[in-house]
């Protein structure tokens, strides 16, 4: 039985950049726990002789030729940016 503890929920939330209230953490711990339990059930099947599925359909080898296509104009590229400066996307300072 997979019961998710608060620490795991906080870790997952951090990875997904989600800010959760204490109530939400509890709610999601139980809901996500249920989902994982369901997955646990699937694990009962012996799949040791089955190739892992890499892709949902039988499609393979889809390529394009190395020929140029249109790019966006600068104004268009920056149009939906939450913030910009001159010809650049502007983001919070990245500390290296």
């Amino acid at each position: 039985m997979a019961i998710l503890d608060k620490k795991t929920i906080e870790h997952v939330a951090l990875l997904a950049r989600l800010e959760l209230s204490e109530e939400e953490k509890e709610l999601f711990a139980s809901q996500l726990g249920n989902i994982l339990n369901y997955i646990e059930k699937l694990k009962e099947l012996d799949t040791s002789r089955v190739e892992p599925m890499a892709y949902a359909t039988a499609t393979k080898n889809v390529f394009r030729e190395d020929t140029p296509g249109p790019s966006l104009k600068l104004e268009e590229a920056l149009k939906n940016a939450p913030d910009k400066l001159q010809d650049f996307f502007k983001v919070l300072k990245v500390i290296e």
Partner: protein
Amino acid sequence: MQYETVIGLETHAELLTETKLFCGCLNRFGAPPNTLVCPVCLGLPGVLPVMNKKGFEMALKATLALHCRVNQFTTFDRKNYYYPDLPKNYQISQNYLNLGVDGYLEIKYDGQEKRIRVHNVHLEEEAGKLIHTEEPGADYSLVDFNRAGVPLLEIVTYPDMRSLEEAEAYMNTLRNVLLYTEVSDCKMQEGSLRFEASISLRPTGQEKLGNRVEIKNLNSMKAVLKALEYETGRQRESLEGGGVVAMETRLWDELRERTERMRTKEEAHDYRYFPEPDLAPVVIKDQWLEELSATLPELPLARRNRFVTELGLSDYDAGVLAEDKAVADYFERCVSHYESPKVVCNWVTNDVLRELKERRLEIKDFPVGPEMLVELIKLVETGAVSMPVARGVFVEMVDTKKKAPQLVQERGLLQISDSAELEGIIQAILTENPNALTDYKKGKKTAFTFLVGQIMRKTKGKANPQMVNELLKQKLEAS
């Protein structure tokens, strides 16, 4: 206690395609910011990536050149992390079924050949470029996505290198292989070739590996070597003082010439890889592999060895020539027109490489083609011009793009091999320098060299040196 250094290297090389890996935007360095972008490489909603066949084949070619076992069923995965240079918040990469595994690169250092094993080779997309502003107190960074989506090859070694010299040989050889196979331009200053190193120390003779430190922010091969040297010292000091080396990632500080612990959050390495649902797997049939193998050129080390065994060059000279494919091709074209590889080798390694360097030219733009050089070499061989004159003619050929015979004619540089004419010149020099004759008679050997120098100067280097030697000797003995 003696310690052994254990080094592994991770290399990123941008591939030389015309367009990006998953969209038709140009793969170009130096364009105005954010002008080579489209909905696909900006990660806008609803777009789908489609694999660039040329890029995939280039990656495969490098994989073959590194003697990897190719996964003939290869797939792509999402590597999930948040960073402002990554528009989709995931990077399309490979994790489960890498393009190539278990290969090797043969290096040669100090006359010894050694195989550095390659753990895996995989294909992924490049991230954008972050620009950190110089403005004091600025609370922002800027992003240029021109580079985002450029095909990137990652090559990961096993920790098989045991010294800085081996690491250096590996980097140089790998660079040459990527240049030879024409999959990357390997310009470190433009970021198209980058290295990350991992290093640990262990007591000599101990099998178990020590704690490993990864080093990032290495912008040149020189930086890699400096950082490795610094880390070797730091780790040895720590171990000798009874301490433990922390397993961590450190950043090379170019200015202070030291590594510093990278501040990271613990979740940083939780990439939660999963299969990329937008890209179909690639099945690589034997025939495709065979076709690509057939396009592989002779690799640098093989060529170097062939220059030694078949052409009789020294290993050093062979290494200098084979290092650059275009130079080696130039040399071989000369040799196909002239039977003495050693003579050609001297010209190429001394004169041609010097002029290329001084004029910052690439050999493909060099005005003196192989046929033109051979023509000049033949003028020396037949005695038409002396070697010192030929060297000067060569420089003029680079300046003027004129052929050697024409320049020799125009400048009246034909070698003087007429004994009567030479005797006249020698007599004149002896008359002008009576002291030298006296010195010679007293047994001073330098007087002879002095006189030869005077004769060469008078004839502007055109006098046939062997004849001058003989005639001068006769003259001095007779007087």
